[in-house]
């Protein structure tokens, strides 16, 4: 699974710790998601997407697909 988390975070100028605090996880968790070492569960994925005001498909991409926003 690919993620646009790092890009979206950079756009908002949020640190990993800021995002972690907003969604109630550790900074290590956000880092693991960004580096592809950990795939979040649906609950966390939705929380992250909503924190950015996006749909889940705009933040996370299943490996053989394309990110929704890039398709438009």
């Amino acid at each position, binding site marked *: 699974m690919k993620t646009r988390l790092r890009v979206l975070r950079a756009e908002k100028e*949020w640190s990993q710790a*800021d995002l972690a*605090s*907003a969604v109630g*996880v550790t900074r290590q*968790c956000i880092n693991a*998601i960004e580096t592809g070492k950990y795939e979040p569960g649906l609950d966390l994925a939705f929380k992250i997407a909503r924190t950015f005001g996006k749909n889940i498909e705009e933040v996370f991409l299943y490996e053989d697909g394309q990110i929704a926003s890039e398709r438009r």
Partner: protein
Amino acid sequence: MTTQSNPPSPEIRRRNTLRLFYLFVVGAIVIFTLAADAHPATQQRVLMAAGIVLAAAGIWSFLRFLQAADTHQKLINYDATSFAFAGSLALTLIFGLLQRLGFLLGASLLLPALMIALWSIGLILFSWRYQE
């Protein structure tokens, strides 16, 4: 976006409960060791009771630690627990064999401590997997 200072972050909450867990466990081990050598029976009973209270507090803080964990930490903890379980199983078999041969007769008391040590090693090992 500003980082909230209150309540404490999940990372800090998790660390605090883990510290509390180790504190209670070390306390329980010390008290149980003292109780084993205590002479008047009443003193031994008091120490044993104190040890049981500390051990129960250790279990309580362990459960708090699990509750404070997010899904990523739960995954690390799952790996660490599996590691500790497999290690404890192997050590139990080795200790059992050695005891049948007349060695390490008091070693059964070490097993809970070994399980916790293995679990701690597992936490460190499986956390490293996610380091930058």
